[in-house]
């Protein structure tokens, strides 16, 4: 397949990047792992004038914890790095569960978490993870850095809150206030398939009570959906069969699925509820 004609820039620093974005504005598109952008270009669904390849910018391929436990995932941190991360395996059960469920091994070795969230595909898995964890994105532009909460980052299918001259620098997950547990469950038709339905579940417990809960849904609406009421039903009490069932019902109600070749709307709602029951009640959620 043959994309439209495009220019190509490969900045070596954030400064250089910044001036390129300034120059090209709307005509430029950032190229990270290319696992969403390149397929769109070859189908000519996307036809940017200029590709600005950030892969040559040093220092963006990190994921690390601040001393207070805040997790930062840099713009060039690949899915595969997160999949293999000892840090996530030890302390971030939801992220560790989600990483191996993204796409297939080839895509995971190039694609990035930040790129996935920027892409704002309602079927992208990472945006749900970030929502459930109450995280945010850090944007860098000519006016400096700003923080955009996960819930405000996506504006709809394939639209995000970044300005044309901004880049998403990192995704940030706040430090936990309790003991972390959680998981990501995804129904896919095949390895490498996008979710028929996916559910991100993040809990923090302290003294036997849930002190923070986040639930977010993938593939069952025009954007990733934060099922806030469902999560709220879990907070302030010990996890119980009743609260989980309540959360399952509320999450299913929060879903806005459309029937398609992956399944009917009723089926997708049912899967959301089932995943909450499985993820929370049956210990399928991994404790950190």
């Amino acid at each position: 397949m043959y994309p439209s004609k495009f220019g190509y820039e490969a900045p070596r620093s954030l400064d250089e990047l910044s001036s390129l974005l300034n120059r090209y504005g709307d005509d430029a598109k950032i190229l990270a792992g290319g696992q969403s952008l390149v397929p769109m270009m070859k189908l000519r669904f996307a036809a940017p004038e200029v590709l600005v390849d950030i892969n040559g910018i040093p220092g963006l391929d990190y994921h690390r914890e601040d001393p207070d436990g805040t997790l930062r995932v840099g713009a060039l941190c690949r899915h595969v790095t997160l999949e293999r991360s000892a840090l996530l395996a030890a302390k971030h059960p939801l992220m560790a569960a989600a990483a191996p469920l993204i796409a297939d091994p080839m895509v995971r070795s190039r694609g990035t978490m930040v790129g996935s969230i920027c892409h704002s595909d309602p079927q992208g898995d990472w945006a749900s993870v970030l929502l459930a964890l109450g995280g945010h994105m850090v944007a860098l532009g000519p006016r400096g850095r700003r923080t955009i909460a996960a819930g405000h980052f996506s504006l709809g299918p394939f639209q995000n809150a970044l300005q044309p001259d901004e880049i998403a620098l990192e995704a940030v997950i706040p430090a936990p206030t309790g003991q972390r547990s959680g998981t990501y469950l995804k129904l896919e038709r095949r390895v490498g398939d996008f979710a028929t339905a996916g559910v991100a579940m993040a809990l923090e417990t302290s003294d036997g009570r849930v002190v923070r809960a986040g639930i977010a849904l993938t593939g069952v609406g025009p954007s990733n959906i934060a099922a806030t009421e469902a999560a709220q039903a879990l907070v302030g009490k010990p996890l119980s069969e009743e609260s989980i069932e309540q959360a399952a019902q509320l999450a299913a109600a929060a879903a806005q699925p459309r029937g398609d070749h992956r399944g009917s709307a009723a089926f997708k709602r049912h899967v959301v509820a089932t995943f909450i029951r499985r993820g929370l009640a049956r210990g399928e959620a991994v404790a950190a």
Partner: protein
Amino acid sequence: MTQTAPVTPSSSQALDEIKIGGLGSSRLRVEDSRFIRGRGNYTDDVKLPGMLYMEILRSPLAHARIISIDTSRAWAIPGVRLVLTGEMMAQRNLAWMPTLSYDTQAVLATDKVRFQGQEVCVVVADDPYIAKDGCEAIDVEYEPLPPIVNPEQSAAPGAPVIRDDKQGQVDNTCYRWEVGDREATERAFAEADVVSKLKLHYPRSHPSPIECCGSVADFDPATKKLTVYMTSQAPHIVRSAVALIAELPEHMIRIVSPDVGGGFGNKVPVYPGYVHSILASILLGKPVKWTEDKTGNLISTGFGRDMYLDGEMALRSDGKILAVRMHADTDQGAFFADAQPSKFKIGLMHSTFACYNIGTGYITAQGHYTNKAPGGVAYRCSFRVTEAMFFQERMVQAAADDLGIDQAEFRRVNLLPDDAFPARTPFGFLVDSGQYDKCLQIGLDAIGYEEFRREQAAARAKGRLLGIGISTMTEPLGAGNSREYDILGIKMFDSAELRVHLTGKAILRTGAKTQGQGHETTWAQIVSHELGIPAADVVVEEGDTDTAPYGMGTYASRSTPVAGAAVSMVSRKIRAKARKIAAHLLEVSEEDIEWELGRFFVRGAPERGATIQECAMAAYSNMPDGMEPGLEGNAYYDPPNLTWPFACYIVTVEVDPETGVWDVLRVVAVDDCGVRINPMIVEGQIMGGLTEAYAMSNMQFQTYDAEGNIVGSNYMDYLIPTAWETPGFELHEVVTPCPHHPIGAKGVGECAAVGGPAAFVNAVLDAIAHTGVRNIDMPVLPDRVWTALQTHQDVSGAPPVRNG
């Protein structure tokens, strides 16, 4: 020449056939050496000086009248050399072309577009990017018409006539067909204790070879010779078709199929793209390359299946089948372009139930034009035997359930016994041989049938849903014979040409065309078996019509039954000549010469012998007086019958009652394909077929929405299983040599893809037997299983897909 060990006169000096890579040797595939090094030479690897690139503009709509086409912006792009429209084709009488099913197909649309993805314009440019830019610059104005995406809509009163281009076509009926004995069948149904019914849709699927279709057409204006490198499973048919249709002299046409990256039936038909590139090359006097993209391949080239079956079975309460009656509606798409050589409009559908004694039967069928992609129909399958065997095995399970008889026992009662062969089926086939009961028993023992039943009951008590499905089938493989099978009148024989060089090395060419089957490996093994020449000393070439003998190509598992037989026969001709040479060398009369593998010897004096290599040397250097020099020959083989392999596939699954997801626990396959030339390659074919069977049953299909938009136009939506999902396979073997094939071999390439799907579906339905659901259409997607569990109703998968 290697020195043979000293021998006592009585001991044989015959070569060890396995060691020389003969019959039964699992020698490694010689073609893989270049494939795994990236040294294959596919059509897209062909680069000729001055070559131009072609791209096709396709219709975005399923059904629409073309109001206008404006190509001026495309012509204005620097580097665009040619823009072809339907009107320009029509001026050359090339807007329509005949199909292999005696219909016509638009080469470029003139009046209407009739399916999404139909070829509307062609742009030829200096590079493929410009060609694509050119396509985007063409403005086509359409007036949308109501789209038709299934036979019901197609046959509805007042439905728009899709083929209004055809004189006398007043509705959307494409053909009607029937076979069998209607009255006898009615009598049998009247006498039945139980009548079992089943209705299902075998979904549309696509062969989807990894290499898409393409061609490099090279018309030389000086010599007037046309060379076309193209992705064809049947290059000779293309040469003849071009000669007959385009009225070019056949000796000035050379079709070359270089390495072909998978075919599965997709590369038998002649597609518009080939024709465009040929015409463009003739008009421009330059080589023109067309490389189809994946979406183009998936949405416009030969699909498989898309058949609706409604059938019933007359049964006696003791389990005996008395008769089968069924009706098939086939969704043909916009043009009736099945690439199949039989005289039967619905292919070999009537091979259904060939392994059972069903008494009598009656089949009717109707083909329907729809606004969907045309053509193909044989996806790893001998012309609809896949649908035939799927329906058969689903019906058998439903009947056993209705009778309350165990599914294995029901098969035992009705399968043809070993002494039944050759057996004439109610629909006229002659099944050649088999040991059905033995295959079934090996399968049941391997899976541990009784034990699984106990396990299943115990699991059920805990709310777990386990199931076991069986599929047993024979299928007719290896078209022809020439009485009943032809393409455009050309009989379905095949051919081989063998040249043994002076040093005993050889080159073999056949009229078949390998696309992954491993001919370069196995044909050499047949030569080795017949002549004792080590397989490594035989090079195999196929696919170039200037050098290969005339043949009908590779599909329908016909290579080994037909071309493979020709390889045997030509080798035997060579051996007959070599025997004369041996007699001359050994100075005895020919009657006193005996043969053992690799060597002639004197009867009664076995130490006096001449190897085949010595004979080859003599054929060029020391031939007997009056003998023509050389050691080469050819053979054309017209098979007396189709070959009839048998298979028993057994699958166990566990269904997740909450999500409808099902996992395969075990797959046992017992295949009897007669004598195995290369057991490793046979096993590879079976595993590949089982993978596709699993794919059909689980995920792989194409459907359409109500607007006629195709779902499954790329690999995000058209799901092909990966190594991750594909279950492991346990293979078993039974050998019933084919009684009419020179080396006793039968076709095998398609068995597992044909017989496998029913085993998977039967297993899932067995797991949810408590619901009373008789059918869930393939693919048995989680949401369909869940719906069945919720509603206790059959689940249809027929298009249009319901969105929203």
